[in-house]
């Protein structure tokens, strides 16, 4: 084991499996679902990759966003890497328990479209390190199917000048599931655009983001929509840091949740840390039920209650995929239709 991995293991062991008294995991009590022994002994996850226009590289030892990314670095003995020098496409499917490390390199000026699906039960922990070069674009599509295990994806990304990280996610929840992203906008004009939906029935889905505007003229937008039915729990935590000197940065984050059952819960927490002047930061969060006026209006036009509710739920979610390319949108929307 290398020094870096040994250090990660040591740190993880010192803190143990994160739990609800750790602020970043307040709404996702991982310790009640797995213990440290299970994390260490989880074994290797299996996956399939179909790729074109990319070079396979070693997973290496990249960074991590949070505690479980650190665990994947420490304990995952499997992984893969993809490097795009021009225009690449990859379809990746994770369907088994276990851990893995993924390394993504998008060279300056290149583009990579990465379509990831996660499925299955048990304990799955995938740690990903992404490096986006100057003027490069990384499009990350993530579809996490409904499961009954623990599913964690931890993404650490660095974006160079004028580079873009684009995420479109559809989450359907697990006993506990979490996507944790840390994106550092390191170069002038770098941007991150994240959007996604969680459609949950009795399941849990946590989207935790931390975007660091480290350079001037950087831009980030986030829009997450959650629909929670039964005893579902939808979580969004969005931390935004604007570093000193990152003047002219612009950020917008919005998280909204529709609760379809009185037992359902949504925890939406935007958080701002601003150390620069002349920045624009807008954030908003709202939790609600379907709008009674809208429901009455549709029913008064002859649309039966179930259909009217469905129409309003779809309209609510649809906004998250505004402007997403048609074929990607269709890919994301199909499982949403199935889940509704």
């Amino acid at each position, binding site marked *: 084991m290398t020094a870096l991995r040994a250090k990660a293991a040591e740190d993880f062991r010192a803190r143990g499996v994160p739990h609800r008294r750790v602020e970043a995991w307040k709404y996702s009590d991982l310790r009640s679902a797995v213990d440290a022994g299970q994390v260490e002994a989880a074994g290797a996850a299996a996956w399939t990759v179909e790729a074109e226009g990319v070079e396979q590289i070693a997973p290496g030892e990249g960074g991590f966003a949070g505690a479980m990314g650190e665990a994947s670095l420490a304990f995952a003995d499997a992984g893969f890497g993809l490097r795009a020098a021009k225009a690449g496409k990859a379809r990746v499917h994770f369907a088994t328990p276990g851990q893995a490390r993924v390394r993504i390199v998008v060279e300056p000026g290149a583009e990579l479209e990465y379509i990831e699906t996660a499925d299955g039960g048990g304990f799955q922990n995938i740690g990903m390190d992404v490096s986006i070069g100057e003027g490069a674009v990384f499009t990350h599509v993530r579809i996490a199917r409904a499961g009954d295990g623990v599913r964690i994806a931890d993404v650490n990304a660095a974006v160079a000048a004028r580079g873009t990280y684009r995420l479109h996610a559809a989450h359907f929840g697990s006993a506990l599931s979490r996507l944790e992203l840390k994106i550092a906008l390191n170069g002038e004009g770098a941007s991150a655009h994240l959007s996604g939906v969680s459609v949950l029935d009795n399941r849990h889905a946590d989207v935790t983001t931390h975007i660091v505007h480290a350079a001037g003229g950087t831009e980030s937008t986030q829009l997450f929509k959650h629909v929670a039915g039964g005893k579902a729990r939808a979580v969004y935590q969005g931390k935004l840091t604007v570093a000193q000197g990152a003047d002219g940065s612009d950020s917008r984050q919005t998280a909204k949740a529709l609760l379809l059952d009185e037992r359902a819960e949504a925890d939406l927490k935007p958080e701002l840390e601003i150390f620069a002047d002349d920045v624009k930061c807008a954030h908003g969060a709202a939790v609600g039920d379907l709008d009674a006026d809208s429901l009455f209006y549709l029913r*008064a036009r002859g*649309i039966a209650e179930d259909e009217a509710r469905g129409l309003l739920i779809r309209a609510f979610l649809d906004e998250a995929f505004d402007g997403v390319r048609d074929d990607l949108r269709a890919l994301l929307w199909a499982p949403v239709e199935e889940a509704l």
Partner: protein
Amino acid sequence: MLEIRNLHAGVGGKEILKGLNLTVNAGEVHAIMGPNGSGKSTLSYVLAGRAGYEITAGSITYMGEDLNALSTEARAAKGVFLAMQYPVEIPGVTTLTFLKTALNAQRRARGEKEMDAMSVLKRVRGKAAELRVSEEMLKRALNVGFSGGEKKRLEILQMSLFEPRLAVLDETDSGLDIDALRLVAEGVNALRSPERAMLVITHYQRLLDYIVPDKIHVLSAGRIVKEGGKELALELEAKGYEQIVKDAA
């Protein structure tokens, strides 16, 4: 067509309609006039079957059927249409999709064949032109970014598309300038027919200059306190509600 007998109804446990009687026959246009808080909107919601509005006594018979036994959507399929005072904005649903969904939902409920998108579009286009509802409006999300006049025109477009038996127009004149009012009134007048009854609910006499009713009823504190022909509107305008209500008592 519509017979309301001794209707007591309210919302949230508060009685608002207190013994209302009203008969409207096919082919007739009736106006309900009344001051704020007299129960005008409650009457329209009770007729459309809005959740939360409860009938505590009396009856509403529509085409020989107990209206209160029908769900909101079933009433629409059976020909009850409420043009709303405040049409809601629904982001994410285009106007045309909404029209098609509603039309087909009503047709399905009546056991009629659903219409395909092209046929709906053709039908909508013809009617839209008369009401100056542009193609661009039809493509936009329902009522989102529409002006007050555009929203009301779209309500009348729906009325024309759904061809109801009983149309209730709740404060259709509110928020309209005179040109918009005239356009909306023309649309409504075009839909007058021997098979159709209309109930025009309004605070002001102005609308009734354009949609001339067969009968006017004055609503006050949840009851009809005075009835008359179209000239009653002018009397109301001259004397004001307070005096009319006092005279009637």
